[in-house]
């Protein structure tokens, strides 16, 4: 397999497929557009699979590296490569793309080609973010991935979609522009290199590190999103079509967290240690406060959106305790959240497609009319609440274990949210699914069809597989995480 530019394929196959789908044009060719989109998504996953099978778990070095000169004027390179931290996300993203295309199969009736093309192109760009090893290349993918999601929310979204699309775009752009300046500053400091791996070695004083860390923090905190810059997420989720919500929750949120691992920790290790109290506090606020906010939501999508913020709080908490257990737990949590939140949004989408409401109060007794759906929904609600044997449990448990090592009260605060998390998810589940049939809309619901069943199975395999046997995931991360920790432990102040 060596010599095949696998990462380039993982990036460009979906993007090219996207343009092919776009070329089918008007809605007369919608069935063709759907078939092409699905083939493109499947092809995207197929070219990504060798990344896992050919992955060497024993080395922390970058693998499948591709290095070509791109803009010699600024020493910018087309430099790709993955390690144990980024490789799982390329796979996750390629996998999620298939579910997203399937999720919009019957629901999206207008401008089908553009819709599917948007997701395929975004999938390629997201793969690019996870595999870029050049600062500018990373930034270019990072920012251009905003365009498809902006259009998807704005064109196929709900009533308040324009507001949500603008808020999403401008919030993220605000963060990424400061990030761009940080990249340019590093370019100057490192003597003219945009290579992220070079930057890991660049010595920096405490003041520089602090400013860089804060610039990274703004960019990534918005993307994660962390409290208090999380407000765009509930709006974006509520207004986005189901597919948009799935990608947003499953992949887009991971970009911020991934950025912390790729940029903040290794480039500014001293500042990371110095400011870890800040990040831990913000994470705890996200976990506890946002957990309670989720409890009072009347809109199901908003509830899951807030629960996403709380779950991502676990991720950032895990990172900033600087232990292998914490970081691996956080990574597991990220992937698990990709499956679980994706599935949760899909479940809500299934109900919304039928009853055109996301309000909890409009439902009740769904189990009577949709028993198969209720079973799947139960599984994912449990996973969202962190029930053992589901993937949600593994990550949170690892992070909490790491937190006990770090500081008992941090662990106590974080663990207490297992209860809140269970409360808001299961209470929502109870109100929506159980009880007598609430109204004639619920009575008219029809159970899931084959396509929806297939999507649920795909998500369930991911969520349960990771919960029962997480080792294939943790195994690939191990040496990369240890290498990262070794970096973070070394001071860069000279």
């Amino acid at each position, binding site marked *: 397999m060596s010599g095949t530019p696998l990462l380039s394929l993982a990036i460009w196959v979906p993007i090219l497929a996207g343009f092919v789908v776009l070329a089918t*044009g008007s809605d007369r060719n919608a069935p063709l557009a759907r078939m092409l989109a699905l083939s493109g998504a499947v092809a995207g996953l197929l070219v990504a699979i060798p990344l896992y099978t050919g992955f060497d778990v024993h080395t922390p070095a970058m693998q499948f590296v591709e290095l070509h000169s*791109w*803009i*010699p*004027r*600024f020493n910018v390179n087309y430099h790709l490569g993955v390690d144990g931290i980024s490789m799982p996300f390329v796979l996750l993203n390629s996998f999620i793309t298939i579910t997203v295309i399937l999720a919009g199969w019957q629901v999206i009736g207008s*401008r089908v080609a*553009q819709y599917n093309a948007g997701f395929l192109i975004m999938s390629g760009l997201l793969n690019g973010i996870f595999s870029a090893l050049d600062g*500018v290349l990373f*930034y*270019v993918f990072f*920012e*251009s991935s*905003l*365009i498809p999601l*902006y*259009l998807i929310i*704005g*064109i196929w979204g709900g009533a308040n*979609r*324009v507001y949500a*699309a*603008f808020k999403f*775009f*401008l919030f993220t*752009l*605000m963060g990424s*522009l*400061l990030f*761009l*300046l940080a990249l*340019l*500053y590093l*370019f*100057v400091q490192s003597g003219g290199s945009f290579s992220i791996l070079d930057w890991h070695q660049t010595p920096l004083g405490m003041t520089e590190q602090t400013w860089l860390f804060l610039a990274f923090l703004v960019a990534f905190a918005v993307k994660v999103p962390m409290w208090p810059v999380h407000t765009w997420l509930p709006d974006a989720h509520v207004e986005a079509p189901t597919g948009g919500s799935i990608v947003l929750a499953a992949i887009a949120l991971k970009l911020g967290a991934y950025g912390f691992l790729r940029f903040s920790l290794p480039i500014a290790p001293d500042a990371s240690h110095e400011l870890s109290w800040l990040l831990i506090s913000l994470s705890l606020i996200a976990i506890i406060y946002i957990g309670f906010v989720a409890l009072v939501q009347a809109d199901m999508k908003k509830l899951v959106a807030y629960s996403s913020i709380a779950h991502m709080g676990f991720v950032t908490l895990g990172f900033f305790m600087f232990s292998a257990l914490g970081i691996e737990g956080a990574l597991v949590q990220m992937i698990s959240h990709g499956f679980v939140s994706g599935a949760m949004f899909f479940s809500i989408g299934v109900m919304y497609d039928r009853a055109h409401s996301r309000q909890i109060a409009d439902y009740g007794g769904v189990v009577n009319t949709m028993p198969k759906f209720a079973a799947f929904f139960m599984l994912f609600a449990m996973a969202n609440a962190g029930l053992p044997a589901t993937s949600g449990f593994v990550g949170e448990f690892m992070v909490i274990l790491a937190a006990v090592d770090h500081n008992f009260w941090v662990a106590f605060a974080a663990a207490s949210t297992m209860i809140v998390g269970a409360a808001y998810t299961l209470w929502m589940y109870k109100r929506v699914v159980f009880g007598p049939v609430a109204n004639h809309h619920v009575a008219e619901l029809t159970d899931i069809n084959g396509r929806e069943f297939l999507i649920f199975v795909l998500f369930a395999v991911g969520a349960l597989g990771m919960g029962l046997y997480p080792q294939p995931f943790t195994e690939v991360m191990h040496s990369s995480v240890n290498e990262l920790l070794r970096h973070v432990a070394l001071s860069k102040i000279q």
Partner: protein
Amino acid sequence: MTLAEMQFQIPDLRLASAEIFMLLMACTILIIDLFVKDQRRTVIFVATQLTLVGAAVVTFATGSGEIAYTFSNMYVADLMGDVLKLLVYLTVIIVLFYSRGYILEREQMARGEYYVLVLFATLGMMVMISANHFLTIYVGLELLSLSLYALVAMNRDSVPATEAAMKYFVLGSLASGLLLYGMSMIYGATGTLEITEVAGRLYSGQANQTILVFGLVFLVSGIAFKLGVVPFHMWIPDVYHGAPTAVTLLIATAPKLAAFAIVIRMLVNGLIVMAHDWQTMLILLAVLSMAVGNIAAIAQTNLKRMLAYSAISHMGFMLLGLVTGVVDGDARFALNAYSSSMFYVITYVLSSAGTFGMILLLARGGLESDELEDFKGLNKRSPWFAAVMMMMMFSMAGVPFFVGFFAKFSVLQAVVAAGYLWLAIVAVLFSLIGCFYYLRVVKIMYFDEPINTTPIHAPMDMKVLMSANGLAVALLGIFPQALMSLCAFALLRSL
């Protein structure tokens, strides 16, 4: 002095053959037009385009890449000049293709004078670009400006156009006055108007500093006016809005290249010793322009007016590259900084041509289509042209993979390398604000329902060119290296 001692050197005409060719052709076309019966003026159109192509050939053939002076050092031929001239021809060719349909629908504009005036404006730009003397700059500038005043007023029954022309003329004359006054002070301080000579005398320190600084202030004000940066920007929105769109398209594109050239000629070639003084002034102008341009653009409902404010902010951003050339008397960043500005202005012209071209594409039957509302639901009327316009908007907003990103990137890189971090932060914050109104255009095209559902009718050549323009914005955004190094190389060989 006897007659024999008065040496008369025949200037090396070969160096200026492109200008001479342009002048002769413009006059010839004016005469041919007397005998043309065709209402559509096809012959004139073709002749004009061929003239521009011919000028490009001449420029290409005579350009040696070496710096050479002629006309008693009033004229300079160098690589930067050649590159900018070739881009000016290209831009004017595109402008004429885009404008063709528009002017044919307006009886008063569909005349030979339109083409002749465009050619004279082009000649003015060429003279500006190749000037090595303050008076040559002035002559070129006036030739350009007078042609543009006439072009703006050409649709003479239109009240807004006449008003815009009047405003443009009065304020433009004021700016020319400022510029001349500044030049006279430079002359008073140094005793010469020849740019390289001015630089030499300043270098040897034999100039009156007070007069020089006063002169510089007037000079910079004049330049700021022509570039349209705050606080000398008042004419931009009115002229962009009031002028016939075909003329707005011309004003918004090629003259920016020429204006960039005279900034380099005057400030860098001539007054580099005073870099500290003019850089401070330009920083102020740049920050004000980005602030006013980006904030005022949000409030506009007319696309031409919005783009006018956007032009103000873009010129402010372009100035950022020029203010970072010399840091603490150290000019080692100069090439990097000036070439980033050059790249910026070229890419701006490219996307500006595309956006105004799109307004022309939608205009039909003698009606304008320059309100934001006219773009509603464009995605349903024509997905491809909506996509092209979207690319232009994202490029102007500085979002990758479009060329505008690398323009902003290279300027910001120069600013950060020179150590002006605060300036870079100000610049990105205003770009963030600016992003809002570009996104709004995308929103109008993609999220709103169309008011007018008629499909787009446009000549095939225009459609093809428009598509090429959009693809160029995207392709240069993916492969910016060639253009970037061309800018750097041209400046390296010319400074």
